[in-house]
């Protein structure tokens, strides 16, 4: 019977502090002005780590803009109608929080596997699949929330409050779908043994950020709707 053995994923090479032909400057690279290279700190954080923070900053700005628009619009006219949030949102919140826990479990196991601390032959992708599943449930749950709102007669253009509800939840769901795409990429790279630790970490940071963003949005919607 044929058996398949997975190679452990490639690990980033260790950083050599005194190498001559590599790059690796970066924001912690401090070189004396007289040109002496002796004290160079040859460390540069992987761009994926910084990139995801920069991306999260841009997303934060966008949702800050949506929030200020909501506050201004609510105050602009007395036509703001309050309504009860669809109950499934609370279930969705639990699902998303759980997905962050499962992702963290998966990230730690994969990190340990990549570091050679775990002896198993196959990469531990189970928790990543569970996270993916929970993420899909969350998005489906948001769709159900829209259906529940629709059944109350609240459509996108019915009232500014419902408009903002649809816009904010849809914008967030779109970003969650982006995170799901990132997770699929991580699982695929893990299967091919080409996953970088920085990619895994960046994806998990993004996913946790989606959690925090959703909690903020839920609070905003709960207080304004």
């Amino acid at each position, binding site marked *: 019977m044929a058996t398949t053995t997975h190679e452990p994923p490639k690990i980033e090479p260790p950083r050599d*502090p005194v190498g001559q032909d590599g790059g690796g400057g970066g924001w912690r690279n401090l070189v004396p*002005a007289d040109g002496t290279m002796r004290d160079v700190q040859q460390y*540069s954080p992987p761009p994926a780590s910084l990139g995801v923070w920069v991306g999260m900053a*841009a997303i934060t700005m966008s949702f800050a803009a949506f929030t200020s628009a909501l506050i201004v619009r609510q105050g602009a006219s007395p036509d703001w109608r309050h309504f009860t949030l669809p109950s499934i949102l609370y279930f969705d919140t639990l699902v998303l929080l759980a997905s962050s826990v499962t992702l963290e479990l998966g990230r730690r196991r994969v990190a340990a596997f990549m570091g050679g601390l775990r002896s198993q032959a196959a990469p531990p992708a189970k928790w990543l699949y569970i996270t993916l599943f929970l993420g899909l449930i969350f998005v489906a749950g948001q769709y159900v929330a829209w259906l529940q709102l629709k059944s109350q007669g609240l459509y*996108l253009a019915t009232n500014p409050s419902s408009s903002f509800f649809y816009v904010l939840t849809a914008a967030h769901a779109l970003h969650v779908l982006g995170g799901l795409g990132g997770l699929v990429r991580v699982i695929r790279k893990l299967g091919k043994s080409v996953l970088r630790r920085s990619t895994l970490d960046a994806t998990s940071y993004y996913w946790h950020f989606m959690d925090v963003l959703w909690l903020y949005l839920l609070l905003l919607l709960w207080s304004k709707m």
Partner: protein
Amino acid sequence: MHDMSAHAAQHHAPTSFIRKYIFSLDHKVIGKQYYGLALIAVYIGMAISWLMRFHLAWTNARIPGLQWLSSVGAPGGLMTPEYYLELMTMHGTIMVFFVLTTAPFAGFGNFFLPIQVGAEDMPFPRFNMMSFWITFVAFCVLMSAFFVGDGPPLSGWTAYAPLSAVGAIAGPGQGTGQVLWAISIALFCVGQLLGSLNFITTTLDLRTKGMTLMRMPLTVWAWFITSCMGLTAFAVLLPACILLILDHVAGTSFFIASGLVINDKMLPHSGGSTLLWQHLFWFFGHPEVYIAIVPGVGIVSHVLITNMRRPLLSHKVMIGCMGALAFLSYMVYGHHMFVSGMNPFSGLVFSFPTLVITIPATIIVLIWIFSLYGSKLRINSASLFALGFISMFVSGGVSGFFLAQPSLDIYLHATYFVVGHFHMVMAVAALFGIFTGTYFWFPKMTGHMMNESLGKLHFWLTFVGTYAIFMPFHYLGMAGNVRRYQAFVDDYMQPLLGVHKFITIAALLTGAAQLIFLYNLIHSRFRGAPAPPNPWEATSLEWTMPSPPPFDNFGGKHPVVYHDPYQYGIEGSSNDYVMQDSPEQIHTVRDEK
């Protein structure tokens, strides 16, 4: 060791035409693509301005062939008032977004930022490629507005609500054309966000060994600061455009007030805030002014230093001032809304930082002037345009003092004074920055030298021409000439018609001078003398490699940087300069501790 190539430039040199020139991952090709897009856009924008100027001077004259562009907007070649406004909207949108943002920031920045910090490429080359192609699609979507039934929108590049939000009932172009405009700008925002992400991570993460923050050339600092602005500003405009699109296609009421009657019809919307659009737009819009101009500040500084053969009075202060411009740009946006109905106290709050922002701008100019004083400036096309940039920046900036004061702005708002101000300080100054960069970096980008005589001719015609066009705008504004009028038939404006005719003739001639530049660009690309690796005897890393640079920039190696970027006038050296990657010891240490 930490292998930078593991993060950047994982792609190998492409062999197929499509991967090499179309969907390229190479930052240099993407930079050229951005530049090419800006070049197409600027000539379209200029041609539109010709049509507008001709119509303003000779309102009842027919423009032969214009009916082919729009049979409704210009029946028989005679421009309708609505079509004038449509052309004005397209001119502003094309120029601000697809020229002034695209060329100095995305074009030159893509090509030179990774090289100047010693990297092989951007860290996310696929995002970089997507950034360009999304921008290209955005441009095509905008251009398609010319060909839809009711034509392009007429609400101006600022697309003020409710005019921009109510749909076709507001006039030609306000239906499909306005939606296309909003989609185009939303796409443009996405493209610029991806680009900014790459610029920031490249600057912070991919600098080569020895390239400390203070050793980065001023161009890199300018692009980095601009990308920080782009990241925050475009992230706000994007949601604004989404809400605008929803007001159009989904019947929401974000920006449309209740009880609005247009063309005898009551609109079904309720309670929207028209000021909300202005707040969201100008939160982007004012930083956008600096997104257009800060790269020019960096380019001009870089070029002047090279031609002065000495560094600026203070590298650090220049960086600090560019950063201060960026920071303050977020606090001044309300000065665009002095007469919009805001609380008068808000006007005062926005007026103060507007006056404060002139401090870093003035320091920048003083650093340039005092650095130039006593220097033996090498006069070439690039340095001439750099001087022209300073001239435009000062001339346009001075009129900003007046507009920064709410009491004066009440009179001057929406007049040609404002048009003259922003055309000089933002548009023409930024264009001069683009020309400076083009004449300076063309040899590196293409491997050919540009014709210097034609370059100098281009400079003088453009310099004199732009002053002839835009200085009289200030006079017109003070005389009460309102902007966005398609004809001047009121009694008090009749005497100003002669000035308008003068401006139109100047615009036609100055525009024609740009054909000299185009000829020089194309001719030099194919017939220009071969460019040596370092024709200007410059010190930064792009001049350490052949012209044009090879695919992997540094031949698979990583340069080591020993000096700050502007080691000129070095006594005892074999030349009067020391390149950044030269291990040569310098006795006259210029590094700022």
